[in-house]
């Protein structure tokens, strides 16, 4: 099947094709999911290199499960987010054991007029604030507000109830709003409160 044609193919179909020996399916699935997997892992771990290791591990697990994959039982994205969440949780626990759970502070600096720099500054501030949240709150907020998953999907990923997801995201968002309040001007939001 041509590469372009496979871009419209569902994840389930691609995974089954991979299990049947279609090498191109692996390429399409990697292109489709690797960025979000790395992004999510990087947000949880705050380390790009480590995030790539986790993403590679998660994709490897996906390849291995392909022959047993059953259409309709789970979404590939949900499955990947769950695997990445668990892998990151393991790594964070190990880090805490060695005292490496330092939370980097966002870089100080004057608000830049350059939009790109401002965006980077905002993302860095958000990431730093996210790392002040408890693990489950951080996972729920990232999945809901950055990865764009629905609450039932997050419930599947985190293996908790939908109500628990709602509670986690609400508390997490409120904690973020409080943590970032004193950086309002730095982040270019000074006009919002005027």
């Amino acid at each position, binding site marked *: 099947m041509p590469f372009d044609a496979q871009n419209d193919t569902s994840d389930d179909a691609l995974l089954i094709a991979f299990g049947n020996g279609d090498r191109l399916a*692996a390429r399409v699935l990697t292109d489709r999911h*690797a960025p979000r997997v790395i992004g999510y892992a990087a947000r949880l771990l705050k380390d790009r290199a480590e995030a790539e290791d986790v*993403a590679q591990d998660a994709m490897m697990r996906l390849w291995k499960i392909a022959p047993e994959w059953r259409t309709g039982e789970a979404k590939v994205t949900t499955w990947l987010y769950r695997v990445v969440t668990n892998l990151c949780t393991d790594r964070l626990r190990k880090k805490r054991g060695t005292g490496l759970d330092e939370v980097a502070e966002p870089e100080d600096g004057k608000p830049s007029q350059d939009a790109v720099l401002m965006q980077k500054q905002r993302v860095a501030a958000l990431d730093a604030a996210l790392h002040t949240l408890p693990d489950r709150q951080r996972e729920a907020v990232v999945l809901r*507000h950055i990865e764009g998953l629905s609450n039932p999907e997050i419930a599947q990923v985190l293996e908790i109830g939908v109500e628990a997801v709602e509670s986690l995201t609400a508390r997490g968002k409120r904690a973020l709003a409080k943590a970032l309040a004193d950086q*309002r001007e730095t982040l270019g939001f000074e006009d919002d409160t005027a």
Partner: protein
Amino acid sequence: MTQREDFLSDADLDTLFADAQSDAPVPSDAFMARVLADADSVQEASGAGLPDWARSKPAQPVRKSWFANLLDSVGGWRGGAGLATATVMGLAIGLGAPTTVTDLASGTWGGTAVAQSAGASIETTSYALDDLVPSFYDLAAEG
């Protein structure tokens, strides 16, 4: 009482989330190569794409008969052969030497002895050397 200034507004937070969404990382070529190499290795290991007859099949546990299990429990065919020989010999000796066993049970070596049994005394004489050897004629008579 909570001041509005104590919290970033929902609109500002949404702006931050939108910035984060557009900040999705681009996987490096090295990462893509590693992931695709993993995919290839998994496909090769599973034999995916090959006809069914060419795929490696998982090893099936070997099922043994009860006799084979019994033979294993006594050390294989060598142990089984030894056990069978010992059984036959034991049976032959047991059937073929009643006289000798009687002699041994009722006497002592090298003189006269008195065996006490339930208040009665039985006097026996000493053994001759051939009393200790199973009699060929006794074995032959027993069949």
